């Protein structure tokens, strides 16, 4: 009998089939292609639930108006990305971690989500550009025919720190703010309603697609008996995405019709407006002061 080394048996277990469960608590065990695809969908919902859990906690960032959080986050992100000073870059990272602590985010989880993957990847992928191929000078580290200078390694380190700093504040903002509040904040900052509407719709469609996709994958999984080759699975997933596209297109047409039926004529009317409180202004001032200290520290310590 012909055997195919690429054949792999799907060993996935999916507990629960309800949509709500699919949205967050489904446990998918396995290493097959189908299981991995399902896991990606599942993680999307888990991230959303994670954000909602922290956004409803009683912490510093949760108490502040979304507008101020957007402004302070942007201030730190711009400062980190325009500074060459390691002191500023490291200080920005530490400030974000302190903010995360005061906002009752799980620090270990925060560090894992922010610093474990992307900054490390950026550092690794920056190494070729930081090597003697592009940056000449006194070798600090030699690996075969290639050597790295201090300036080269610092360049890679800065790129990684900038990525981590930007991610930290983006993560803080999203984890401590409900999506609805963030959109309301952007609206109050006079970001065009059309742009916010597109963001909202995109956000909504992601979950509609993920939900529909999860159910299709689960239906396929439940009908899978015996060995299915990886190639077969990929073929199925390709077809499923085609189906998903058709389904989402139909849904999008109906969503538009639903909007028209409730008075939508091409422009979104704005939502309620909330006044800023003393805490919000204090938060902005404290953020600005910390940033000033970091920048001055950067000039002093380099």
């Amino acid at each position, binding site marked *: 009998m012909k055997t195919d080394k690429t054949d792999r048996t799907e060993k996935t277990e999916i507990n629960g089939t309800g*949509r709500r469960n699919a949205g967050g608590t489904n446990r998918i065990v396995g290493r097959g292609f189908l299981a991995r695809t399902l896991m990606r969908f599942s993680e999307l919902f888990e991230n959303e639930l994670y954000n909602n859990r922290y956004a409803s906690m009683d912490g510093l960032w949760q108490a502040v108006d979304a507008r101020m959080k957007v402004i302070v986050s942007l201030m730190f992100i711009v400062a980190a990305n325009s500074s060459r000073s390691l002191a500023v870059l490291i200080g920005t990272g530490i400030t974000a971690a302190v903010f995360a602590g005061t906002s009752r985010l799980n620090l270990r989880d925060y560090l894992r989500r922010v610093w474990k993957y992307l900054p490390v990847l950026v550092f690794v992928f920056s190494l070729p550009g930081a090597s003697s191929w592009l940056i000449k000078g006194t070798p600090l580290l030699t690996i075969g025919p290639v050597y790295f200078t201090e300036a080269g390694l610092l360049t890679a380190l800065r790129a990684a720190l900038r990525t981590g700093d930007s991610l930290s504040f983006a993560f803080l903002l999203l984890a401590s703010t409900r999506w609805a509040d963030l959109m309301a904040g952007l609206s109050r900052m006079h970001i065009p309603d059309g742009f916010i509407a597109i963001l909202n719709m995109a956000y*909504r469609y992601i*979950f509609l697609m993920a939900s529909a996709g999860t159910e299709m994958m689960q239906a396929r999984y439940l009908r899978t008996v015996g060995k299915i080759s990886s190639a077969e699975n990929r073929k199925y997933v390709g077809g499923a995405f085609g189906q998903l596209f058709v389904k989402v297109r139909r*849904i999008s047409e109906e*969503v538009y*019709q*639903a909007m028209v039926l409730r*008075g939508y004529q091409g422009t979104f009317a704005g*939502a*309620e407006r909330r006044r800023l409180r003393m805490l919000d202004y204090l938060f902005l001032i404290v953020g600005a002061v910390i940033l000033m200290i970091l920048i001055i520290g950067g000039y002093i310590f380099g």
Partner: protein
Amino acid sequence: MGEIFNLSHVAFSYPMAEPIFTDLSLSIDSGERIAVLGVNGCGKSTLLKMLAGLIAPGSGTIEAFGSPVRLDRMRREEAQLYHQKVGYVFQDSDVQLFCASVREELAFGPLQKGIPAEQVMEEVEELAAGLGIEKLLDQAPFHLSGGEKKKAAIASALILRPEVLILDEPTNNLDPRSQTWLLRVLNRLSDEGKTLIFATHALDLVPHIADRAVLFGENHEICADRPVREMLEDKDLLRSVNLVDEHFHTHPWDFE
């Protein structure tokens, strides 16, 4: 009761498809409770969307509230006024819920009308309390169960205080408790004088929420238009349009 809708010799077909209607005529009075029945694909949803002004007939005329309706030729204000008078609840609640929270969802319609935000928020609270869905207000629509989504979708249509409420398969995917909630809401709306039109396959619930039934055959034509009880007792008729199988039976005392 005055006439609210009048469809006269309406024909309609989707692009590149067989005609759905070739000669459809129907009249609906204000305050009526009408169930549109028929097998899948017989044209129920098309009729409802036509009444809601989402699709226009290829030929024939539709009159609503005493005036001819061609939404594709209406001015913006006229279309908005029409949509305010005729509320529509989609079969799939997911398509009707596109905002970040249920509160925003309910506020969407009134805000588009230009009602001040403070007043809208008060109306949202009031309606949510009336429907018993206050706890859902700050939740994201995609976190809701099927029944909760349906409640939010119905509330989002009701906030505009429509004179006519059209519901496409309203009891689909609802558990018995949510079905009871829906029946109560529909009966309350009917008591307030609203016109209710809905498509459904839930024949056991029809007598509780409708007085008149319009039955479509598989040829997309209306084959009966009678009081609900009379329609459901005519098993030969229901069988002839494949709406029930031969083992179907109803208990007339359920309709009392």
